[in-house]
């Protein structure tokens, strides 16, 4: 039931772009994205509710392919503050599960 994320880890230089993918084996009602910094609780980034929906704020955006049960998170022109572990979260029926996580490190 746990969604699978790829890659597991990525290291970027400031200004570079990254894509994080999230795949589920079951039909999804929605996809959430969260970022967790070390020693802190996960913080909500965005929700996608409809297949084909795309959202974004600042330089972080996401898409949701309902048919493929996949979502992707796009980080452009990365900043040092983007470092952390990114989790997708998926609603299947009434249940909510976090993905396997992607560790992202941005270096100067």
């Amino acid at each position, binding site marked *: 039931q746990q969604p699978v994320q790829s890659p597991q880890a990525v290291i970027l230089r400031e200004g570079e772009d990254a894509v994080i993918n999230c795949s589920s084996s079951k039909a999804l009602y*929605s996809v959430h994205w969260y970022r967790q910094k070390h020693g802190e609780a996960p913080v909500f980034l965005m929700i996608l509710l409809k297949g084909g929906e795309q959202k974004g704020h600042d330089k972080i955006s996401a898409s949701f392919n309902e048919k493929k049960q996949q979502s992707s998170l796009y980080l452009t022109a990365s900043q040092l503050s983007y470092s952390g572990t990114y989790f997708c979260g998926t*609603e299947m029926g*009434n249940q909510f599960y976090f993905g396997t996580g992607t560790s992202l490190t941005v270096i100067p």
Partner: protein
Amino acid sequence: EAGVAQSPRYKIIEKRQSVAFWCNPISGHATLYWYQQILGQGPKLLIQFQNNGVVDDSQLPKDRFSAERLKGVDSTLKIQPAKLEDSAVYLCASSLDRGTPLHFGNGTRLTVT
């Protein structure tokens, strides 16, 4: 609005002892979640409540873990007896409804020695 409140922040116990965690969700949030997060891993859902009913507790080790949500508001999670592998951060989260963000508390860091 006030956030999700959890207590205690830290707890150290010996194996075979019991421990309880408390969570007060954001007012009006119908859904409450308890997650276990072991260092370096993602949050693992232990139990999900909708008001005071259980939606999912399939990953809750019921021989030692129990949880309740009183009157659809506060919740407690108990471990009895604790094992070394229970050392983790226990996160409580709440959400208003399906398709809305989860709001997390600061978590309780449990160390079992």
